[in-house]
């Protein structure tokens, strides 16, 4: 069951990476980065559940905050791009 979860999350990671590489505009790349970050969070939590060690869970908490700040900054950048 846990192995299937790892496989499904890896497939989602590949899909987001495809959008990151392929995306025609900057907004699509930001969406790809955001999705990859989300999959990484899920992988950290699933790994903590699998091994029973929660040493990396603080990394997950920090990753949510850093991801939000990065997305907000890139949103301002996109908005100024059209001028």
């Amino acid at each position: 069951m846990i192995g299937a979860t790892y496989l499904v999350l890896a497939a989602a990671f590949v899909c987001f990476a495809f959008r990151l590489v392929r995306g025609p505009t900057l907004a699509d790349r930001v969406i790809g980065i955001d999705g990859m970050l989300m999959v990484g969070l899920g992988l950290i939590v699933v790994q903590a559940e699998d091994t029973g060690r929660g040493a990396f869970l603080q990394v997950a908490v920090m990753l949510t905050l850093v991801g939000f700040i990065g997305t907000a900054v890139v949103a301002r950048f996109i908005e100024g791009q059209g001028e």
Partner: protein
Amino acid sequence: MIGEVIVLFGAVLTLLSAIGVVRFPDALSRMHALTKASTVGFGLIAIGACLNMTNANDITSVLLAAGLQLLTLPVAATLIAHSTYWAHRIPVRIDGGDELRQAADAGRLGRRTLRRNRPTTHDGPDQESSPS
């Protein structure tokens, strides 16, 4: 056992949102697919992992991460959607009424968004009702 099933369900939801991000034709609809499915997906992963954990420190960390994600992801999606809409080079397709543009024309938005008049490439009802 039930925790693993919930975690797998959340992972499948994340995969569905990834497929939506790949398949949808437009930046705004891709963002729709990412945000809607991923909040629920990560929330289910966190809840399912909490059901299997025993250490209280781990459980609070996972719940904090899920709560922060639930708070910040809609805000980030709204920021990206607004800037995608007002950016000039990104084509967006809008079906039905364009309420953001109506609000901007009525002056109900801030001065910052009113300054940029988007050259309308979308096909809204305000375009069709005024033929040149």
